[in-house]
């Protein structure tokens, strides 16, 4: 087995006495689509926030490519090759679609983005990345519109596209289909499946049909802990998973 791209050891996030994430050990293998699912309140999004650096964890360790990133701030993780999308769409609403993507590509430039003298033309690489991404997301026709005027589905796709612009080694997607209409979901599913070919993807998702159809590995969380981990087939047949999901209803 190859060494994992992202590994957490005994990861814990506590809010007072409540443990939102409780001793999670996650291993994400390079080149796979790894999904994290679980009933509401299972700690999926909390786990996600720990991985992106949005929340300072209460205990444990996070390793990216064998390197301890536990104390690294969010922007520092992007520089290492981790990029994320947001569950609640977070765009530069008044800037054009192209500019949103270009800024996302430029985000990996580090100190060079502080260049306040040379014109943008001297950083043409980022504009080229943005144009490529516009094609890939089928948004070229809307390139000059403010991002805020796109339909919700298109905003969700732009949201994911911005994460890819950083050319990350690990793509963290937080419920990319949240609030999307039924018509747009297949587009997103196709996009994520396509991304899985070039990137390692960690997907937090509610929509079972997407998770089951494109994941290589699925981790099921419940009450802040890992309940089951395995292939879609194995997870589907696991009795504990059924109880965790149906238990709520029963």
């Amino acid at each position, binding site marked *: 087995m190859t060494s994992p791209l992202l590994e957490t050891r005994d990861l814990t996030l506590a809010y007072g006495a409540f443990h939102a994430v409780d001793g999670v050990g996650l291993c994400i293998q390079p080149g796979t689509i790894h999904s994290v699912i679980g009933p509401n309140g299972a700690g999926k999004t909390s786990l996600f926030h720990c991985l*992106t650096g949005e929340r300072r964890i209460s205990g444990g360790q996070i390793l990216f490519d064998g390197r301890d990133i536990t104390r690294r*701030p*969010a*922007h*520092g993780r*992007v*520089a290492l090759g981790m*990029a*994320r999308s*947001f569950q609640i769409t*977070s*765009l*530069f*609403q*008044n*800037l*054009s679609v192209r*500019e949103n993507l*270009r*800024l*996302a590509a*430029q*985000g*990996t*430039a*580090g*100190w*060079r*983005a*502080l*260049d*306040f*003298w*040379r*014109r*943008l033309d001297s*950083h043409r690489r*980022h504009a080229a990345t943005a144009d490529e991404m516009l094609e890939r997301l089928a948004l070229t*026709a809307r390139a*000059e*519109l*403010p991002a*805020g*005027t796109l339909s919700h589905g298109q905003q969700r796709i732009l949201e994911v596209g*911005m994460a890819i*612009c*950083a050319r990350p080694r690990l793509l963290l997607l937080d419920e990319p289909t949240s609030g999307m209409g039924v018509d747009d979901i297949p587009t997103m599913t196709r996009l994520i499946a396509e991304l899985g070919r070039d990137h390692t993807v960690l997907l937090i998702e509610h929509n079972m049909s997407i998770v089951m159809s494109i994941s290589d590995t699925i981790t099921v969380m419940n009450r802040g802990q890992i309940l089951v981990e395995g292939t879609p087939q194995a997870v589907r047949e696991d009795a504990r998973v059924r109880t965790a999901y149906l238990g709520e209803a029963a």
Partner: protein
Amino acid sequence: MNPKLTTPARGDSRPANAIFRRRPAATTLAMLAVVIALPLVVPSATLACEILIFAMAVLGCNLLLGYTGLLSFGQAIFFGSGAYVAALAMIHWQVGLFTALLLAAAAGGLLALLVGALAIRRTGIYFVMLTLALTQMAYFIAYTLSDWTGGDNGLLDVPRPPVAIGGFTLFDLESPLAFYGLVAVLFVFLYLGARRVIDSAFGSTLLAIRENEARAAAVGYDTRHFKILAFALSGAVTGLAGALYAMLLNFAPLSNIELPMSEQILIMTIIGGTGSLFGSLLGAGTIVILGDLLSALWPRWMLLLGVALIAVVMFMRGGLWGGLESLGRRRAGAARKTQEDA
């Protein structure tokens, strides 16, 4: 897709800033025209100098407020210290014009770096309060160091050295019009410089931070670095403006470093139009000219200024520049309509 259907929608939904960025060449020409015409139009060359000096300070303030979304009450610190540093260097070290101006810009930039580094540790209202507190501190420091700053009396006999290279005098700046020439050249350079900064990778990132700071951090920017650099650039420009103001008055009053100075620069920025470089000129020009005209008529003219500010904030969100723009847009729309009807 039918282009006719998309064009009007685009015109309406496009943010004001995108329009400013679309015609930078035209606005630069307009700026040059204003700078050349100004001493001929306003009552005195001294008043013209004052307008351009404040327009510089507003350029600096605009970088923070208009492009980064930082409401800084610290501008007086940079303006006042620029004035003091240039004046003291000229009085005690007999430095020349350009050395004095460079020292003032360096002092303004350095202080802004420190103020920025401290204030941006908090956001929103707490950030604003920190800049307020720091300005109050700077004021009391200047007040206390009266041996250097003259305290309440201000620093008197600030020279206005000639433009000289290696001890050889090129231009004498004693006449207000000659001094206006210097101020105008500097203003044009600063304006073009600000244009470049805004069009750079750095400038585009500032807009991103203003739009959505969390997202900017998520795509990899250390937003603190960008804000601190924006502060330093803003402070340098403002310090330079302060030095020129001291040379203009031959005097560096304590009010340069007082909170009302920050307010005045902010009001000019908002009235002119945040996020527009040309608006800087409009804002400074309007306030300085109004002040000059109204103060002759009525000592309580500041009250009217308050009314003007309320009007702009309530009815002209983009300031005077935004107002001009929407007027232009409406006329263009009307023209298009007549064309279509015909």
